[in-house]
């Protein structure tokens, strides 16, 4: 009840893991821990979908739809008729991290 943060888009293909240790190194929430033979996915519910682990995995053993968990950005995108999933943070002055110029 009153928790929207139990599921994420993180998927781990353990069979592909070569135990390079990158995922546990980059994750700031200890979602992955270094194991003896494979990286261990220990706290999936703490994933914030930043994408650091997936991007730095050299064998694509991790998949995640990375994005910024910012309601402000998503609501602004929705109000302007844009795709909520495609927005990043910023866009106009007034967000937590303003974007200096439009790209």
């Amino acid at each position, binding site marked *: *009840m*009153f*928790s*929207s*943060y*139990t*599921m*994420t*888009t993180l998927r781990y293909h353990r069979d592909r893991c070569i135990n390079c240790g*990158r995922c*546990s*190194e*980059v*994750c*700031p*929430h*200890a979602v992955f821990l270094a194991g003896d033979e494979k990286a261990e996915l220990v706290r999936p519910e*703490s*994933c*914030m*979908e*930043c*994408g*650091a682990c997936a*991007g*730095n995995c*050299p064998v694509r053993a991790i998949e995640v*739809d*990375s*994005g*910024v*968990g*910012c*309601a*402000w*950005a*998503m*609501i602004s995108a*929705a109000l302007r008729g844009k795709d*909520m*999933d495609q927005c*990043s*943070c*910023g866009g106009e*002055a*007034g*967000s*937590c*991290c*303003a*974007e*200096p*110029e439009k790209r």
Partner: protein
Amino acid sequence: MDHFLARWGVNRTEHRVRPGLYRLGNPGPDSPVLASANYTLSFDALRSSLPGQDAYILVLDTMGINVWCAAGKGTFGTDELVRMIALTSLANVIRHREIIIPQLGAPGIVAHEVTRRSGFRVRYGPVRASDLPKYLENGKATAEMRRVLFPFRDRVVLAPVELVHAALPTAVVMVALYFLTGLTGALAVLAAVLAGTVLFPALLPFLPTKDFSTKGIILGALVALPFAVSIGTVSTLPPWATVIAVATPLIIIPAVVAYMALNFTGCTPYTSRTGVKKEIFRYVPVMVLLAVTGTAFLIVLGVSRFIGVI
């Protein structure tokens, strides 16, 4: 002073450092190389955390945005890192082939791509610059150094910027409510905005439930309570109007604080997009319903007063 202005959102993207290679202390060809963003606060946090250390700092062009946000956008990213390594001829300045990237820059960086394209091996440093001296001494980060925290100071440091953004609409609504309902209404607006911008971040971990919206509703209800009580006790209105007048803050303030609370998700370092999206679909309709009902109540009260019914 520059930091103070940055925190209040004055020219917020103009607090920039020129991208390039900087010398810290007296670095030699074997000194470590640390990457940073060209946001003054990021660069200075890095510099000041390493007193007496000889090192190179490679400042990437993130357009004046901090490491974490720039990494999320990809401006603190593989392309920019490879570009700056080449542009500064880093390979001719140092003998080793290692570059230390702040851990929170990792979402923008593909380490094995950097190595393939530049020959430099990426090492991820700790989350906090303050742990860098220990990291450089031991050559690795402890589990604690790898965890991002969101302590009181980090939560409230964003409040000034939020206040500046809220100032104008708040002032307008306060004036409008002052004429419509008197001083109580104006104060209620101020209380709601302060609750959303300052109290909410400060109390975040102590408010019950996990969702930001429900935390905000609870905080908003607590803030609304004294207003409802004071309106109810001093009311000289007929009973039906008193009920509406008491109900209005109890409806509107939680909706406003909840909306501001939900928007704080982007300032935290732990909410996932999947979760935030779920929150939006779950609670925004409720917030809109509450806000519309509350506004309707206000209009009823205003009109009744205007035509002399109450």
